[in-house]
């Protein structure tokens, strides 16, 4: 089961930073990344991210776990830029993507989802004037994070059932139950949210 991007308790300086500050830093890094166009700048970004992980006292295996799902995307993007724009551009583009994902991973590993949601709700508070409820957007974020793991679990169970029935080569036998069960979960979750007073 995945441990990707989930809060890891701790008392490090990074843990103690307010979630809003960490989110703001992540947004600033994302915005600043468009200015990066030299491999040495990418190397500098990795050093900063690595220092962040060290300061947060997060084990190396968790850092690698954040990067692993991106491997194929990075390979494809990197190969494309290598062929079209040369090795320097390939290094810059893949490096920036990886550094940002690792940074986002650091934010979620060191901040409770509820803290991130609270920070988001505070930032979105002005939207109330437009009739948009920031609490709902925050809840949506929390549900999205929670649902990743539920869908991964469903996918694992469907794959097991598929193997047990010898249907490993059939994408349809994989996709149909996965979609149906995910939709059913969404239905049940909606009912549970009402039962737990989410619409109060």
């Amino acid at each position: 089961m995945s441990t990707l991007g989930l809060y890891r308790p701790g008392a490090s300086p990074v843990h103690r930073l307010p979630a809003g500050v960490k989110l703001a830093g992540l947004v600033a890094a994302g915005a600043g990344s468009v200015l990066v166009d030299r491999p040495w700048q990418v190397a500098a970004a990795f050093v900063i991210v690595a220092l962040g992980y060290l300061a947060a006292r997060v084990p190396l295996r968790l850092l690698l776990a954040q990067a692993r799902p991106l491997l194929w995307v990075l390979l494809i993007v990197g190969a494309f830029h290598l062929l079209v724009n040369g090795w320097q551009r390939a290094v810059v583009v893949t490096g920036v993507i990886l550094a940002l994902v690792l940074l986002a991973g650091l934010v979620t590993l060191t901040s409770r989802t509820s803290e991130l949601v609270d920070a988001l709700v505070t930032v979105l508070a002005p939207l109330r004037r437009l009739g948009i409820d920031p609490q709902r957007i925050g809840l949506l974020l929390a549900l999205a994070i929670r649902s990743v793991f539920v869908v991964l679990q469903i996918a694992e169970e469907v794959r097991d059932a598929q193997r047990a029935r010898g249907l490993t080569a059939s994408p349809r036998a994989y996709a149909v139950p996965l979609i149906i069960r995910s939709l059913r979960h969404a239905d049940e979750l909606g009912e549970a949210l009402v039962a737990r007073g989410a619409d109060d």
Partner: protein
Amino acid sequence: MIDVVGVSHVYDAPGRRTVLQDVTVRMTERRIGIIGANGSGKSTFARLLNGLVVPTYGTVSVNGLDTRADGRAVRKQVGFCFTNPDAQIVMPTVREDVAFGLRRRGLTKEEVAVRVDSALARFDLADHADHPAHLLSGGQKQLLALASVLVTEPSILVLDEPTTLLDLRNAQRVGDHVAALEQQVLLVTHHLDLLDGFDRVLVFDEARLVHDAPPDEAVEHYRKLMR
């Protein structure tokens, strides 16, 4: 006190299907069991009790509040625990999920923390407080679901087959916790052992409430129905 008066419920799609037919019952006892075959209407009946389902005909009221008109107020009094805890766990970590139900209740952060810690300790989840909820065992997930509902201090708790997905040991753990509750409990179950010590058991069959008696007599009736 829960009053169900002349309730029928019909699902429109697919086809027109009556899942409850003319049910009238007043429930005041502390422990009430609800049993019946799959599709007999017992889960729909349970959902009527906190307004998750509004009856097509008839009325349901909880302590004088009508579930049709005062659904939100009813749900503050009636906690609901589902069969599948995964569908009920909303937040990524254990502590956050327990705290979820306390949002918008006018509590300070410290008050929320005290209530959450107390609920986690009561359900043996204190050591897992910051763990991802999806990494808990099935039994622990159901205990988390219970803790998350009970932290809001409802006066009535409805449980819809909370032990169906659990092994015997975990089913017994959940049963023990339920037995120790101060609240009025309405338990839908296929685990008939859990009804020991209950005050009253309702038996549903083919959308109707067909029997209403103390546990021994009601279970005997149910067994005869299933033959």
